[in-house]
């Protein structure tokens, strides 16, 4: 079966975090490699979506959706996710 990349997670991440985190830097808890979520290797089937590290194949995150509207977001392999609150060139922190 063919893989996709983390770009397809944008909608699910926006539903989870309230913003599109595909450009956010994530660190793989298995091997330490980091990069934007957009470059994760994604396996998508009706079981759910599994995002894996392109360096070591370790599972970064999972999305599972039930037919009754419940959904689960797992982040077993992301040790931390960088979020940009502000940048020096733009505004000062609130």
């Amino acid at each position, binding site marked *: *079966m063919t893989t996709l990349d983390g770009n397809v997670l944008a909608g699910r991440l926006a539903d989870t975090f309230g913003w599109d985190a595909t450009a956010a830097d994530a660190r793989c808890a298995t091997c330490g490699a980091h990069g934007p979520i957009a470059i994760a290797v994604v396996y998508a*089937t009706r079981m*759910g979506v*599994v995002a894996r590290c392109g360096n070591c194949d370790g599972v970064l995150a*999972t999305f599972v959706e*039930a037919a009754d509207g419940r*959904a689960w977001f*797992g982040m077993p392999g992301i040790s931390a996710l960088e979020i940009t609150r502000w940048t020096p060139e733009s505004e000062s922190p609130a």
Partner: protein
Amino acid sequence: MSFITRGFSSRRGERDPRLPPGQSLVTDWPVLSAGPTPEVDPADWEFVVRTENGAHSWNWDELHALGVEDIITDIHCVTHWTKLEMPWRGVPLDKIWESVETEHDYVMAHSYGGYTTNVPVEHLLDGKSWIAFEADGAPLDPEHGGPARLLVPHLYFWKSAKWIRGLVTMPSDEAGFWEQNGYHLRGDPWLEERYW
């Protein structure tokens, strides 16, 4: 709030009274993957059962020597498809368990490639499960879990771990991969135990 999309209908197969609730009949065999397909040569293959008392391992020929039997069984995927009366060949876990001593009531199944799933020991024994090598009259394709997979057909098929490598007994039930990420700990299709 979602609305019904004009002209869109779900493509599920036919309903059939022989099926568990929410399942539809299919005649093909869908492949669902959570990661890359491992390539394991039977010459290098090993199956291990590890308990609190030690470990026992079998290579390909040793496991086959325990006695391979023919099975006809239905399989039910949590993604709503069911295949009826599918022919399989494998070694029953009952034969394997003759070499196992444990007080533990649960196992974690481990696969080549890292997949895990948890099963209570009572759901493996008394003719309920096999280590399977053939399906539909042919050796298992790697994409379907070959060279060998766990076959526990009375539970949802994510419990039938592809590329099985071994079982580790546990004193309490702990969640494997899908169970950690939203799926039911036990997975009985007749009770529709799909999710948490």
